[in-house]
């Protein structure tokens, strides 16, 4: 009940935020519109006021929101500020392209997932190995760029931009589908072995049931708990689409929304964000419905024990080695000068003077990589800390937290980044805020699960019986039991958070030049990938290392001392 109310409140808040974007926007929309319409006209107060009246910005937020909501009910999303055309047809056209791309990506994902999960299903082997896990953690923009450089530019097999034929579909679908498929395959492969070891499997086999029948039944048992995560993957596709469509210049909804944010075409932005949000919510709702269909009353009565996933164990040496390489590179780079411009040594190949070469302005790539760690990983640490605090706080109000989390789950970091950037203008702070907004739900659900577990234990009853006050119980028993594991969980999410920040930086929504933030670094150097491949690949390699670190760190730590609920929360969080 409270969950439903919170869900409705969160949804209303997001809708209102979207509707109020023109009013909230930090940079004066009238000014940017004037620039967009006629570059030579002077921004006199009269001209700006005329535009404001024209757009209805002078009537205040309530009237603005009311008009937008009323238009929404009639299927009218307004008129683009830049092109002056109707928004709805543009959004629908973009949606058609994006849905085609997502469909193709989903096919790729299913194929990848099935391939990775096959050994587990057929031979009962646990996990999919570290390589697949790293693939799952690789952000879409990075894979898109690597595919673009390798298959498109170097090998020249496939077209790298545009949307004119089926060949144009291949690379974007691969970039979008492979990480999603690797994640799906990994989830299934980790869930299956526990199921295949259950008593009934032995019984069925003993009774001579065919192997195919047993495997089907095992899948039927392993899948329902994974469905919410499948829905999350589908939501992730909408966020990934923004990056992939931008890299391959596909005229889909993702590129539309990014372009609209950058040109401050707020009506178009509103329409496109609304469509992405609806897509995400739809994915979540379909996931919930399928799960209910598969589990039936067992779900309602909470009487179903679900198999616990068994992540592939990774020796602690692996993340240690990865972290050491990363830290050594960063440390070396920090000792060098990142902003010195050498116009004579532009796009130089690696040499003794510049171990990783130079960029288009002749700046040392190694130095920029090292100094970029501070805005990338430092910001990620701040975001994780903030998300951890929010998660702990909301973990004590599980019903409310679930409702809010359902809505924020439908909002990938990239889309949140676009909305925040439209309000505050792009920048490190905006990117950090956007990632924080989407980073707390897994931590809150973990905290809620732990709180529930502690609160149900007999020793807390003993505390109450001895006359301890609620504050005493909270501060001395509940908080210590919850804060430690949730903080560890937040640390585990640090590399992933850094990747989310980097993808915003890559799209130009985060840190601004000349900050050497890694995503931005990759974006700047990607244009020169043919002439200076090392400079382009260095930030990509750093981000890939970060992805590998994220995965292996999680795999080594989840093995240690985790309760069922913790594991459940961790897997939900992924």
């Amino acid at each position, binding site marked *: 009940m409270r969950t439903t109310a919170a869900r409705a409140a969160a949804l209303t808040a997001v809708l209102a935020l979207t509707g109020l974007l023109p009013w909230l926007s930090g940079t004066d929309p009238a000014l940017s519109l004037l620039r967009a319409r006629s570059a030579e006209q002077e921004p006199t107060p009269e001209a700006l006021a005329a535009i404001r009246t024209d757009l209805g910005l002078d009537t205040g937020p309530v009237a603005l929101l009311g008009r937008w909501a009323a238009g929404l009910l009639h299927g009218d999303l307004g008129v683009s500020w830049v092109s002056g055309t109707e928004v709805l047809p543009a959004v629908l056209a973009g949606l058609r392209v994006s849905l085609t791309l997502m469909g193709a990506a989903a096919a790729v994902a299913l194929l990848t997932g099935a391939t990775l999960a096959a050994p587990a299903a057929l031979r009962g082997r646990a996990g999919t190995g570290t390589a697949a896990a790293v693939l799952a953690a690789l952000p879409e923009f990075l894979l898109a760029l690597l595919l673009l450089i390798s298959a498109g530019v170097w090998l020249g097999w496939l077209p790298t931009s545009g949307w004119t034929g089926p060949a144009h579909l291949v690379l974007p679908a691969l970039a979008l589908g492979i990480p999603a498929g690797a994640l799906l395959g990994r989830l299934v492969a980790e869930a299956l072995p526990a199921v295949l070891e259950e008593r009934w499997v032995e019984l069925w086999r003993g009774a001579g049931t065919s192997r195919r029948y047993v495997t089907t039944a095992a899948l039927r048992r392993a899948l329902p708990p994974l469905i919410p995560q499948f829905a999350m993957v589908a939501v992730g596709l909408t966020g990934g689409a923004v990056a992939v469509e931008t890299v391959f210049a596909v005229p889909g909804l993702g590129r539309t929304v990014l372009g609209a944010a950058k040109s401050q075409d707020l009506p178009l932005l509103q329409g496109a964000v609304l469509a992405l949000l609806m897509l995400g919510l739809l994915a979540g709702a379909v996931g919930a419905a399928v799960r209910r269909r598969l589990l039936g009353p067992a779900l309602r009565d909470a009487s179903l024990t679900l198999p616990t996933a068994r992540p592939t164990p990774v020796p602690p040496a692996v993340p240690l080695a990865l972290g050491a390489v990363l830290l050594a590179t960063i440390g070396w780079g920090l000792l060098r000068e990142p902003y010195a411009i050498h116009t004579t040594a532009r796009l130089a190949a690696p040499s003794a003077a510049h171990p990783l070469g130079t960029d288009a302005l002749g700046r040392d790539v190694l130095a920029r990589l090292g100094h970029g760690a501070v805005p990338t990983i430092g910001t990620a640490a701040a975001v994780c800390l903030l998300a951890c605090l929010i998660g702990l706080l909301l973990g004590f109000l599980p019903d409310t937290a679930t409702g809010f989390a359902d809505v924020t789950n439908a909002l990938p970091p990239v889309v949140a980044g676009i909305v925040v950037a439209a309000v505050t203008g792009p920048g490190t702070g905006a990117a950090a805020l956007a990632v924080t907004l989407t980073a707390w739900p897994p931590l809150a659900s973990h905290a809620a699960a732990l709180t529930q577990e502690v609160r149900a*234990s*007999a*020793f807390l*009853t*003993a*505390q*109450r*019986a*001895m*006359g*301890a*006050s609620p504050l*005493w119980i909270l501060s001395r*028993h509940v908080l*210590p*039991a919850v804060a430690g594991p949730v903080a560890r969980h937040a640390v585990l999410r640090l590399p992933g958070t850094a990747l989310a920040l980097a993808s915003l930086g890559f799209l130009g929504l985060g840190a601004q030049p000349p900050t050497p933030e890694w995503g931005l670094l990759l974006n700047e150097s990607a244009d020169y990938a043919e002439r200076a491949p090392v400079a382009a690949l260095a930030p990509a390699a750093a981000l890939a290392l970060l992805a590998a670190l994220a995965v292996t760190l999680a795999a080594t730590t989840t093995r240690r001392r985790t309760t069922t609920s913790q594991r459940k929360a961790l897997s939900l969080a992924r």
Partner: protein
Amino acid sequence: MNPPVPAQPLTVAGSPGSDTSSPARPAPIGKPLAPAHAASAAPQPLLSVRDLVVRYGSTTAVDGVSFDIHAGETVGLVGPSGCGKSSTAAAILQLHRPHSGEVRFDDVDLTALSERQLRPIRPRLQPVFQDPYGSLSPRRRIQDQIAEPLRVHGRWSHPAGPRRVAELLDMTGLNPALGSRFPHELSGGQCQRAGIARALANTPQLLILDEPISALDASLRAGILNLLLDLQDSLGLSYLFISHDLTAVRHLSNRTLTMHDGRIDG
């Protein structure tokens, strides 16, 4: 499932082994705290439960239960699982507030008190739970957990506090060296003793024993039952002993009540 508890070690001070429900159990030796024979000596009961009704949502778990416990007396409460024994215990302890009825403890109706008003009274009636490990925090040393009731009520001081903890460990038959251990480093029986030591920290008058031996190995049960008898003798405690094990209840109790579907039979 429940092997008979050996009768011999259960009897104290060489009294004729008696396992009937008559109040003929041996009187505590040389302890002025407790009346010689509770039922006859104290006209005013220590605990008086009247028309207790406990509900969980629309389910009625306890439906009009009344009984008394006098000082120094052990009342057994038996019945099948789900009959409302533990709900009765939780309602007496005000851990789950009863729907209606009275719980008079030392002539104070606990049901009428607020949570804050209850706090100073709570140490005087203490629970001992079924799950020996679950009733202790896995994150704290045994000695800190035994000391916690003293700290909660602001009675901790040096050197009296540590001395009291050592005394409690000794009273419950635990080696003082075990105090610095964590619950998972102890056996179930040792954890149950630590739980009893914690319940005794603030010198209670009544212990609500909710299946205190059900989770233990048969070999450890007699030890805990003997400990409870010894403590009753030396401290003059009253017990409400809840169990589905009729033999154990008969060994320990002066009177036995049988519950069925939320009501006391007979």
